[in-house]
């Protein structure tokens, strides 16, 4: 029941929001926080009863949904999905705090936002492929509206590009899903059953199915060369939605790669590994170089996501427990750290209405709290030991090195580029001569602090002591590779 509650609470909130008068922003925000908060609270309560030593699906719920097609309402989490569920409920709540700054068409905003949250949670929790696909697509529509109505100057183009790009990927995923359905002797969409049925599938079939799945997943990750929608969508989206995009939506792709690609079509997955590692290296190096070339802070952070997802892919390509743990941990850390980065960029944009790097200078003098938080987050993102990013990147490299020596070496060099663009940003914005134009700029408000401080605290916690998040996923990852 708990998983259903987590998934559907936001949707119920959305339906309630729909019935409220549109001028009553306070009530709408209240309902939004209650719904998203209920989901967050329920997921936190589950931590206590989540068995970290078990690799099985937990809190399973299974009912027939469309018996004619053998589609079931099958939910469950294991060590791979549970941390991502926590990330989603947490980051959604944080993004909702950030959404208090939205003043226009509040009712529609909260309606779409809450539907989006249900979609994202469902993707991680669903254990039936049709259910998974339904949730996967549900995330698209709200995102289209959230970018297109509340976004920046080129929002409308960004919205439709995002939508069509992702949709074209997912229809191939649908084809792959149908192919598996007819191949399985019992004609089933159940992921757990397909994971068993796949022993009978020949390599040729698995490769084809994997490619269909990968096409849909790679766009979401985004893996080179399917990353071109991301900078535009990120830059044009309003701040809280950029946070959600980076923190949760990209993770759906990597999660799918492990859950569907690796677990259901292992032969296809291992066939693809040599290419995957090349894509990972390109993501890392090319993403970092692109980030370095940006003058817009938000676009820079967007490209840093391409770069960070490259680390995830590299860790996965290593096919070791270390690499997999690194990849999953990197998903969590990237969610927290990049989420914070987008919020921080949003803070300065709200004040200055520009994100141009060269428009600032010496801000550390004027805004010490802001500068401190920004530096902490940047250091975490570039992988400074002692902060969250370090452990996951380290594990990804360590896990991949034994199998892919020179590829990993090139990727490690990519870290230098990552460090370079973050340091350059800090230098340009916070150090140097103070630009008098911003003399009246206030430091961070309570609302902004409320959304960023929890993330900063987690960044330090996971940097000093990464044991807890790793302990959640450990048993599952060992089980994954033991097959």
């Amino acid at each position, binding site marked *: 029941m708990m998983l259903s509650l987590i998934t559907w609470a936001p949707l119920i909130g959305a339906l309630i929001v729909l019935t409220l008068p549109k001028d009553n922003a306070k009530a709408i925000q209240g309902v939004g926080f209650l719904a998203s908060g209920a989901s967050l609270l329920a997921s936190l309560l589950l931590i206590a009863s989540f068995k970290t030593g078990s690799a099985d699906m937990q809190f399973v719920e299974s009912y027939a949904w469309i018996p004619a097609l053998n589609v079931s309402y099958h939910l469950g989490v294991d060590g791979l999905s549970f941390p991502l569920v926590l990330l989603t409920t947490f980051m959604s709540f944080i993004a909702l705090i950030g959404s208090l700054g939205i003043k226009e068409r509040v009712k529609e905003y909260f309606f779409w936002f809450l539907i989006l949250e249900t979609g994202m949670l469902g993707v991680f929790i669903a254990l039936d492929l049709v259910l998974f696909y339904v949730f996967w697509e549900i995330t698209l529509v709200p995102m289209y509206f959230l970018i297109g*109505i509340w976004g920046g100057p080129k929002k*409308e183009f960004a919205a439709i590009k995002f939508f069509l790009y992702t949709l074209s990927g997912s229809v*191939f995923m649908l084809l792959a899903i149908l192919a598996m359905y007819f191949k399985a002797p019992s004609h089933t969409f159940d992921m757990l059953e397909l994971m068993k049925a796949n022993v009978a599938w020949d390599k040729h079939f698995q490769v084809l199915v994997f490619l269909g799945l990968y096409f849909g997943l790679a766009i979401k990750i985004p893996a080179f060369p399917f990353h071109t929608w991301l900078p535009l969508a990120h830059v044009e989206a309003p701040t809280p939605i950029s946070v959600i995009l980076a923190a949760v939506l990209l993770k759906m792709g990597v999660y799918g790669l492990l859950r569907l690609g690796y677990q259901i079509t292992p032969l296809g997955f291992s066939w693809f590994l040599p290419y995957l590692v090349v894509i990972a290296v390109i993501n890392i190096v090319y993403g970092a170089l692109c980030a370095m070339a940006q003058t817009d802070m938000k676009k820079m952070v967007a490209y840093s996501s391409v770069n960070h997802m490259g680390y995830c892919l590299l860790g996965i390509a290593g096919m070791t427990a270390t690499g997999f743990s690194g990849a999953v941990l990197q998903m969590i850390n990237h969610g927290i750290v990049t989420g914070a980065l987008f919020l921080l960029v949003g803070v300065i944009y709200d004040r200055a209405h520009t994100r141009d790097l060269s428009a600032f200078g010496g801000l550390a003098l004027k805004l010490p709290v802001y500068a401190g938080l920004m530096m902490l987050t940047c250091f975490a993102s570039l992988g400074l030991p002692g902060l969250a990013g370090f452990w996951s990147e380290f594990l990804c490299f360590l896990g991949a090195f034994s199998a892919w020596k020179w590829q990993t070496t090139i990727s490690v060099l990519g870290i230098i580029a990552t460090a370079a663009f973050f340091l350059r940003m800090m230098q340009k914005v916070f150090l140097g001569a103070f630009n008098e134009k911003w003399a009246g700029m206030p430091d961070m408000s309570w609302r902004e602090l409320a959304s960023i401080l929890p993330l900063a605290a987690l960044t330090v916690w996971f940097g000093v002591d990464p044991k807890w998040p790793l302990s959640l996923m450990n048993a599952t990852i060992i089980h994954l590779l033991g097959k």
Partner: protein
Amino acid sequence: MAHLSLLTPALVLSGLSLALMLLDMLLPPKHSRALYHAAWLSSALVLVLVIATMADPASRGSGALWISDSYSQFFSMAVLLTAALCLLLGLDYRALPERHAGTFAALMLMATAGLMFLVCAVDLVLIFVALELVSISSFVLVGFERGNPKSNEGAMKYFLFGAFSSALLVYGISLYYGASGTTHLTPGAAAPGPMLILGLILMLLGFGFKASLAPMHFWVPDAYEGAPTPVTTFLSIAPKIATIALLLRVFGALFPAPQYELGALLGVVAVLTMTIGNFTAFFQDDVKRLLAYSSIAQAGYLLIGLVAGTTRGVEAVMLYSFVYVAMNLGAFAVAQAVGQDAGSYDLSSFDGLAQRSLGLSLAMTFCLLSLAGIPPLAGFIGKLYIFSSAVETGHWWLAVIGLVNSVASAYFYFRVVHRMYFRAPSAAPAPLAVGHFVYGAIAVAVLGVLLFGVNPQPLIASVSASAGLLP
């Protein structure tokens, strides 16, 4: 005249439509609205009649020129439901001349009765008569707004094209008769030879006109644009699904397409229909024309199930047809509400609809998303069935082309959505004045789109119960 009782519902409806015509003459013009109510109540009544007699085995069987099975009953119900809802839309459509309310209502019922004959027919004579009944009624209905030049233009084009395709159909029928010596559609009546196959192809073209299959679709945009919106709604749904039902009977059950090597031809027609429909819709700035091209494309998806030819394919076509009633009707109903308010069906009349009426724009969004096949709406379940029937029978290319088409279609459906949500309302954002009956029809449609999307099992169960009995 054996087993005329099998046609009872269609005969009752024909009788009611004639009665309406008589009433029109007797009733003073100021009460003419009562005739619309009488009309939608008549089709609802016949719908109830069909449902009530379904359980009775005596309602099914073979007659001289017709056959009544649960398959034809299913499509009769879909057609009657469409007719009732479109007549409701007509109640709030102001451009219709009050004076001719009875004629309008009677013609709608007559077309509906024709479609009910059509889904029962197994003899080419009855098929031809039924098709002509539908065609002639709809020619008049399209031209019903006599003061509107577009309406006249649409009716004229529709008529000329209709006459041409009737000729093709008759030619096909005569070839079939020459090959088999009978007009009855019986499998094995004639050895497969060039004459029979040519006859079947010509018949396919004749049917394709009604179902708006490429390359017989040219009349669609003009007729749909010119016709009164309730008529457009009716034409875009009822004749289409009834003709697809007929195609399914002829090329699915009686003359299985693969056996006559027509499978590839049907596949090509499906691809052409989808692709032409979707890619031409990109360039439309009139919402009725846009939905017209969209409905052409939808017919293409339906054909995929026919090409698959399996039980699952038949089920897919039935399921999708039923879902299509809800989603297309909803979209046209909102278009009518908005277009009537703005005085034009240009896309710009949708500007800022979300800020004027969030409910109406959400309804439109749901219907359009469903047409594009986005879950969790009913259209997704329909497409899932359609494409899975193609994948199951190894028609990968059809599934791929169909899915690519779905993505492309999302683009133009979102052009409407874009207008509703991203544009500011032009001038004063006054709330819309929408009639109760239009609201009712929209509510029914949206409810269907949501309900069959979230809980499709009851619909699937009734579809598979009906599909299994196809001869």
